[in-house]
């Protein structure tokens, strides 16, 4: 469902956020609100699980970029996982794929973020 966001707090400062459906200009504000609330609460290690996402517009990319900047300022980061090929292409088109730590699955993202392992290590 567009606009729905599944959330799972894994540790004091680690959270998995899984938006659903299309991340377009309509559904980005509630998603961005969720990210902001976690960052405000000091959860700066964010895993954005894109398994349920079929489309990401430029406003979605901007929201992720903005969250990444805030997370990094707070000593954390935004990691992405479970991207469908088409969603990945959108990130690649604008060179965003190299900005984020991207993991094939949520489990790998969670393990790496918990242990502080960079992707590919």
């Amino acid at each position, binding site marked *: 469902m567009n606009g729905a966001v599944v959330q799972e707090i894994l540790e004091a400062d680690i959270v998995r956020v899984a938006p659903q459906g299309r991340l377009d200009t309509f559904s980005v504000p509630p998603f961005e609100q969720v990210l902001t609330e976690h960052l405000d609460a000091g959860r700066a290690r964010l895993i954005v699980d894109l398994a349920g996402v079929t*489309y990401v517009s430029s406003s979605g990319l901007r929201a992720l970029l903005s969250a990444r900047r805030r997370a990094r300022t707070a000593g954390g980061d935004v990691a992405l996982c479970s991207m469908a090929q088409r969603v990945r292409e959108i990130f690649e088109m*604008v*060179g965003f794929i*190299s900005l984020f730590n991207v993991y094939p699955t949520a489990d790998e993202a969670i393990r790496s973020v918990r242990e502080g392992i960079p992707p590919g290590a």
Partner: protein
Amino acid sequence: MSEEKTLRVPGRFESLAEIADFIARVARDAGFDEDDVFRVQMAVDEACSNVVEHAYGPNRAGDIVLSCRVDGNGDLRVDIYDQGRPFNPDVVPEPQVGADLLDVDEMKVGGLGLFFMRKLMDEVTFHFDERVGNHLTMVKRSAK
């Protein structure tokens, strides 16, 4: 498909999913493969998002009209009309995209929607006149 297919919807973000479904159907009927259907869909989504966000904004209301036609070569032409503030693409800053984005500030990615439209479609042309309002034409050439 030679006839024109049109959709008129309120210029609001809530309309974006309906627009996406409409344009996907049109592009599929025109014979485009799923990769190109997705590209056309994304370009149209970005264009209509710009209309709602910038041409209409919070204080204006109006419709978005999409008009689609396939020519004899199988090329798909999408015309998008709105009655919002005149849009001038020349004043939109170019986004900084590519490998040197590592120090990016999100403020520098203004114009990202426009970047996608130009990247995904073969032609993107903006027109404005007092009577018609904003008129955007985008063309996706047939791969056949």
